[in-house]
């Protein structure tokens, strides 16, 4: 364990393209893109199904399929595709393969929890409230935005929490294909034999800390959300206590929200 402390105290590990800050940013970059991509796909579908009640079986089955697909296998299956795409998207194998396989594989991992929770969250909203809103003349998009989403937001955010935790922890396997991210400390450590142990521990600690820390942040957002609204990619969500008021200005439903 002393080796691990030395690893963290060694200034060389904090600078340059192989240092902790760069790897951390790569990790956040991979995870961030994956979550955004999964949100663009999963959230509208989940909200649509939750709001209309149509296609629920299909979506839940698709999400279950997504859950059953092993990430490492996806990573490997996409490899030939990204190798052949490499010249087009500007990556070369030498420059550390590329982020495409890991980003795609992580996006697929993140879709099921986001989609299912969006669906389950909307379904949990009291039907009477929605009927009342409809009776008051709110448009469907307004009902979704001002009533269903705010009330369902803790459950919807719960989906993001699960997705983010899984993605941050799993994105380490990208290192096997020479992708970047904190997983590199682990994989490079494995290749150094016994001397690499401190690097492995350091990588594991960094990834776990990042995952737990991010989850903690999201849990605060989740808790604060009922009174204050949240920003799951949308500024339009209003606190649900205000939902009874007639929403001002109408406004378009933002992109990504059906």
């Amino acid at each position, binding site marked *: 364990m002393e080796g691990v402390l030395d690893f963290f105290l060694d200034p060389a590990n904090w600078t340059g393209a192989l240092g902790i800050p760069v790897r951390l940013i790569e990790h956040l970059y991979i995870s961030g893109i994956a979550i955004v991509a999964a949100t663009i796909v999963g959230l509208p579908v989940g909200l649509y199904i939750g709001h209309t009640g149509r296609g629920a079986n299909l979506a839940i089955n698709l999400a279950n399929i997504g859950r*059953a697909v092993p990430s*490492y*296998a996806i990573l*490997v299956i996409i490899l030939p595709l990204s190798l052949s795409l490499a010249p087009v998207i500007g990556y070369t194998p030498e420059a550390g393969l590329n982020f495409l396989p890991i980003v795609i594989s992580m996006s697929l991992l993140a879709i099921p929890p986001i989609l299912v929770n969006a669906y389950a969250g909307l379904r949990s909203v009291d039907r009477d409230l929605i009927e009342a809103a409809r009776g008051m003349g709110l448009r469907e998009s307004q009902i979704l935005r001002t009533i269903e989403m705010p009330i369902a937001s803790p459950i919807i955010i719960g989906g993001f929490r699960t997705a983010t935790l899984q993605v941050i*922890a799993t994105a380490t396997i990208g290192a096997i294909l020479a992708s970047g991210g904190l997983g590199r400390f682990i994989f490079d450590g*494995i290749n150094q034999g016994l001397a690499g142990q401190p690097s492995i521990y350091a990588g594991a600690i960094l*990834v776990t800390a990042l995952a737990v820390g991010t989850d903690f942040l999201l849990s605060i957002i989740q808790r604060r959300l009922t009174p204050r609204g949240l920003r799951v990619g949308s500024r339009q969500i209003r606190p649900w206590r205000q939902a009874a008021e007639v929403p001002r200005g109408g406004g378009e439903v933002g992109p990504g929200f059906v």
Partner: protein
Amino acid sequence: MLQGKPLIDFEWILEHLDDIGESILQHLQLTVLPLVIGFAISMVLAVWAVRQPRFYGPVTVVTGILYTVPSLAAFAILRPIFGLTLLTALIPLTTYTLLILVRNIVAGFHAVPADVLEAAEGMGYTRRQRLIRVELPLAVPLMLAGVRLASVTTIGLATVAAVIGDSFGGLGQLITEGLQTFFPTKYLLGAVLSVVLAFLADALFVQLERIITPWSRAGGGAR
């Protein structure tokens, strides 16, 4: 490295059917053992957490942290301790099942209606009889859902174990060797077979759940 050659070399596959079959068997071993051990541990933890609710929080926190440790690191950390023995693969694979299983087993117990428990008590069941004859059967659907998710997860994670050494075998072995030798047929085969295995396991547990809980599909049942 792909030019000129077809992506999949079917001749190679046909020539190596025996090895592939063995890899699948090894993979099943890497999956079933952690599931069985993990289920036994989880059952103990869950029964304990149901009886002493204040322990449920700590149990989920600890199993949650274990779940968050990157699989690659977990295998690598155990390598100097147990060498390239099966234990190095089995221990992390087992700990990864705990969070899912404990949660679902506890949820299963909580899903048992209070009336039913009271009725069992009124009929003179002891605590143990009630657990075995009433609570366990009623908790089965959620438990099985947990086992289903855990088995699918384990099948996926077991492929990662091969990254740290070639003594565990399994489909991960095909992937690792394929990657190391730039032989797409091999790594794609390993990956695709692990996906197929995951789906089969998923389907198997769905069927199993239908078979052993006939009451849940008897059309609503409880009035």
